[in-house]
């Protein structure tokens, strides 16, 4: 497959090798993140006028799901401020070359946790409380602060970025969807890595730190666990690391073999559908149940939520897989064919996000001038009136996203099916049914 090596551009390469541009972005992002925590805790409790809600759940989410993930994969992880304080404390430095003496406990994450099951659970936990979280600044502030402290705590105990790799509720789905992105970080020549002494890209050197994501770049075949931190570009003594532009969906040609990743695909697919029904649908009972955390109605909602995501969706998929004839083990068929759900899930999220982002984007203008809801008017836009944007384009854009997602997943299903020697028709039918439901929910 054709690739264009972006790091051939000397300007881009020097910008990625240098720590300063990234540090400048990090500092801005960290200040913004801390400000979002404080805004959530001390600003107006009215979500639509609070920086934490408007900039995290509307602006950031729009950028993440509509731009960063589809076009840059883990591009967000490259600038995410959450792991930074922990990482700096762990290293005992911001820029200085790594000290060989390990800081803090520097333990290896136990093998049973070296997967994305914890990320699946953390996402589900947040998703169950999302109606409150997305509308209550206080809760958003607490969750943002909680993630920051969790990342610091894990950095003190474990080596590298344990939080990003194994716990971050966002990192899990960014990882599986980053396989569809047209950007990748890969080695140029495998043989160079094989013969490279000391593997500084993984173990670190005086030029930089070993991969914070616990990945050996020489073995990278997918974007899933590469956080695009660019550390390996700095440490590789052979200039053997490249950032490439590539066709969309390139990683999906190699189907997944992991059950935790397969479940992540179902979790994302199902939660997009449930959000579309609960947050955008006309059913007040669902909304009330999702919002009244702790009540019996909420427990019923939670039960339904988990049953659909962890039982019904994978259950029907598994039933379909059971009907296929192949000598390939059922688990391998299940994980491989679930790869088809990755582009579909991404486009479900794009379609869902278009709806509430375009509806609520005008809040960003007002919140810019009065981020805490204290009556400021910093840029003269505090009194900007709420106005849904591009409403005439919303329906067609959502339809395009969903139909495009179905076609994309169909192509992926065909490739994945051929890898495990089964027919793709049942998976395509499954995707078609879910797309039809999503179209009905959104349009």
């Amino acid at each position, binding site marked *: 497959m054709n690739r264009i090596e972006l790091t051939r551009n000397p300007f881009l390469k020097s910008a990625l090798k240098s720590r300063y541009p990234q540090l400048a972005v990090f*500092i801005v992002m*960290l200040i913004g993140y801390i400000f979002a925590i*404080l805004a959530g805790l001390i600003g*107006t*409790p*009215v979500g639509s*006028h609070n920086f934490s809600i408007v900039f995290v759940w509307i602006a950031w989410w729009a950028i993440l799901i509509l731009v960063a993930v589809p076009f840059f994969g883990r591009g967000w992880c490259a600038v995410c401020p959450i792991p930074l304080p922990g990482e700096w404390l762990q290293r005992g430095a*911001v820029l200085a070359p790594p000290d060989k003496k390990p800081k803090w406990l520097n333990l290896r994450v136990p093998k049973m946790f070296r997967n994305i099951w914890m990320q699946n659970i953390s996402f589900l936990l947040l998703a169950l409380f999302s109606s409150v979280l997305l509308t209550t600044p206080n809760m958003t502030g607490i969750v943002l602060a909680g993630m920051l402290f969790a990342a610091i705590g894990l950095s003190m105990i474990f080596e590298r970025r344990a939080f990003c790799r194994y716990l971050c509720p966002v990192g899990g789905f960014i990882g599986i969807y980053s396989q569809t992105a047209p950007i990748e970080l890969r080695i140029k020549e495998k043989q160079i890595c094989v013969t490279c002494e000391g593997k500084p890209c993984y173990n670190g050197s005086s030029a930089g730190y070993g991969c914070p994501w616990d990945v050996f770049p020489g073995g990278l075949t997918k974007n899933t666990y590469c956080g695009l931190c660019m550390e390996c570009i700095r440490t590789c003594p052979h200039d053997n690391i490249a950032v490439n532009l590539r066709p969309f969906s390139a990683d999906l040609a190699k189907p997944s073999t992991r059950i935790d990743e397969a479940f992540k695909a179902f979790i994302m697919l199902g939660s997009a559908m449930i959000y579309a029904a609960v947050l955008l649908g006309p059913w007040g009972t669902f909304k009330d149940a999702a919002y009244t955390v702790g009540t019996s109605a909420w427990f019923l909602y939670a039960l339904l939520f988990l049953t659909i995501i962890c039982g019904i969706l994978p259950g029907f998929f598994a039933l379909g897989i059971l009907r296929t004839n192949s000598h390939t083990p059922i688990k391998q068929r299940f994980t491989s064919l679930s790869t088809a759900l990755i582009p579909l899930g991404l486009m479900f999220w794009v379609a869902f996000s278009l709806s509430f982002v375009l509806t609520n984007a005008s809040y960003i203008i007002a919140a810019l001038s009065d981020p805490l809801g*204290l*009556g400021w008017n910093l840029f003269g836009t505090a009194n900007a009136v709420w106005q849904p944007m591009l409403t005439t384009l919303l329906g067609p854009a959502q339809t395009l996203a969903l139909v495009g997602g179905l076609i994309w997943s169909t192509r992926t299903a065909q490739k994945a099916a051929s890898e495990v020697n089964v027919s793709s028709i049942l998976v395509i039918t499954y995707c078609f049914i879910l797309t039809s439901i999503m179209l009905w929910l959104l349009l």
Partner: protein
Amino acid sequence: MKRTELFSRTLILFGIVLAVAMPLYFWNQTPLIHARIADDGGWNPDVIRAEAGKPLHLRLISDDVMHGFAVGQMDIDTVDVEPGKVTDITLTFDKPGIYTFYCTRWCGLNHWRMRGTIEVRGASSAEEIPSSIPLYVTLDLDIDALHDSPVIPSTRPSAINGQQSAMNLDIARISTSDFYKSHSPYQAFEELDSLPLTDSEKWDVVSVIWKSNTSTESLSDGKKLFAQNCAACHGENGAGDGVFADDLAAAGKDSMQTMNGAMKMSMQTPVDFTDPTRMLGSSPALLQGKVLRGGMGTGMPMWGSIFTEDQIWNLIAYLYSFQFEYEK
């Protein structure tokens, strides 16, 4: 330590301190009066202090739904208090005293509990008007007792129909303001007992007397006050079927406060002003007592600190329009 490392650490530290200190500083420097539905705390703060004759600048913000702000017994325009948006208002008090500020929007079932006080100190810059004792107190009325009318008209009494009869009668004694305020329509009806009129004609004359003690402007003011403050419970047409009526009935005792257990309050269905038995047995003085003091233990709030005396009489005049036909 390298200079670049030191510079980076300093920059990060400065950025973090800035990100924490700036919002906290400005938050601390921006005192706001927060409005929340009464169940979540109402006004915060709910006691404000001011100096007589000096402007009091208030910044109001709602933390949940749309609220309104007004100060009782002051001639100011009410302002809306929108969720997440700051509303500025400046008040100047001519004389010291304790003023009540309150929500003017039907924000929830306990909307009327959203009240606070402004304690104004200093010297008065306005002419002192001695406060009068309310009429219902002077008359020693038991405003909690039943005052039903034993007789009610078969049709709605009409001031238009009664105009001609009234012109031919000597009703000056029972048409005075003092008589009107201290007597119920039924008592006026009884005063007409000796006259050669049918019951229906007598009720028409009573409605003429009641109309003569008000004016178009008073009725208009009363109607406006009723719509803003009473209709939520008593209904737009006074039938006791306002938007909160069902909720009040459903909420029952649980929705009501108790005062150290000494007085249990039991929610009652809002009064139906279209019920002739009740209204024709009630004098304006009795209604004044109900409005001023509130229906103790019934959920009816007290309005004495909110409405002026004139406003209360205007409101009462309007309440009788649910019984009497004043115009076609």
